[in-house]
């Protein structure tokens, strides 16, 4: 039996702080935010990805993940989210290893674009001020974001995802305690 570990030290305040950081990240695509929650999720989950899932996922959001049984058990215990093997039916997808293709995820419908899935992508590092050039809503001129360990061909896949707007998939990039968001409206150009 795997050892279950605690979730947020203070479930209310930590979830609120994490939610605020995610909201800031989504409103300012490509800007790096820190999630300052007291949390030590089981490996290989980083603290930002763990805090994001504890804040967002619940019993109504099927979750797909590739992080192993320990993480699945931890998430099921702390947020009660049903774990699904069918990535197309998941509201949240957590990728710690090889990222699934964006096209495999639920993109919602024109009537209900809010049903599009959110991919929580754990990467090796996030660096501001270099790399990709992001433009679009929430960005005055351009934001630069370099993602260390981004999946191969991500920018091309993103262009296809962005063209589907208002349908599409949102991405949360997590590294350590930092997050940056790529809402479906943002355009990415290689730097």
């Amino acid at each position, binding site marked *: 039996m795997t*050892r279950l*570990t605690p979730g947020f030290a203070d*479930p209310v305040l930590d979830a609120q702080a994490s939610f605020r950081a995610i909201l800031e990240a989504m409103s300012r695509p490509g800007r790096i935010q820190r999630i300052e929650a007291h949390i030590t999720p089981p490996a290989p989950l980083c603290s930002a990805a763990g805090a994001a899932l504890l804040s967002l996922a619940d019993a109504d959001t099927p979750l797909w993940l590739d992080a192993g049984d320990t993480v699945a058990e931890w998430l099921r215990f702390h947020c009660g989210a049903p774990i699904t093997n069918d990535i197309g039916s998941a509201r949240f997808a957590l990728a710690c290893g090889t990222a699934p293709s964006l096209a495999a995820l639920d993109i919602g419908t024109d009537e209900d674009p809010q049903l599009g899935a959110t991919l929580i992508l754990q990467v090796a590092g996030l660096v501001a001020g270099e790399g990709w050039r992001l433009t679009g809503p929430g960005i005055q001129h351009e934001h630069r974001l370099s993602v260390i360990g981004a999946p191969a061909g991500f920018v091309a896949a993103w262009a296809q995802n962005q063209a589907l707007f208002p349908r599409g998939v949102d991405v949360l990039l997590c590294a350590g305690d930092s997050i940056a968001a790529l809402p479906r409206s943002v355009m990415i150009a290689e730097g």
Partner: protein
Amino acid sequence: MTQTEPSPPSARQKWMSILARASAEELAVRLAALPPLPAGETLRAPETGLVMVRGRAGGDGDSFNLGEMTVTRCAIRLGAHIGHAYIAGRDLAKARLAALLDAALQDAALHDALMRAVVEPVAAAQQEARALEARKAAATRVDFFTMATMR
């Protein structure tokens, strides 16, 4: 829908229900006689919420929502064992104590001493209280009968 026959309660279900019915003071008094329990790691701090209680009319009718009840739950890990408590009401200290005891009772090294010192006396007291109430109720029982009308 096929109804499955409820399985007889396991030993753990029995002690969990006894702990859930006991009061925090009762548990603390019984525990005071024992060496202190190891401190557990809190997986889920005691939290109070509502649970919808459902019923079925006549036992086999459509299920309906009877009402919501206040429930406090807690989960504590002690070594390899995880103790859970779901108790009626909002007594956080009792939920924590019951979860800690549930974890300790799963530990073979602590099980027998705790059963003897805490669970069995508390169960006996609860049984006694139930029997007393049943006797009091039985003393006021009125047997109704219908006289047959004979013509």
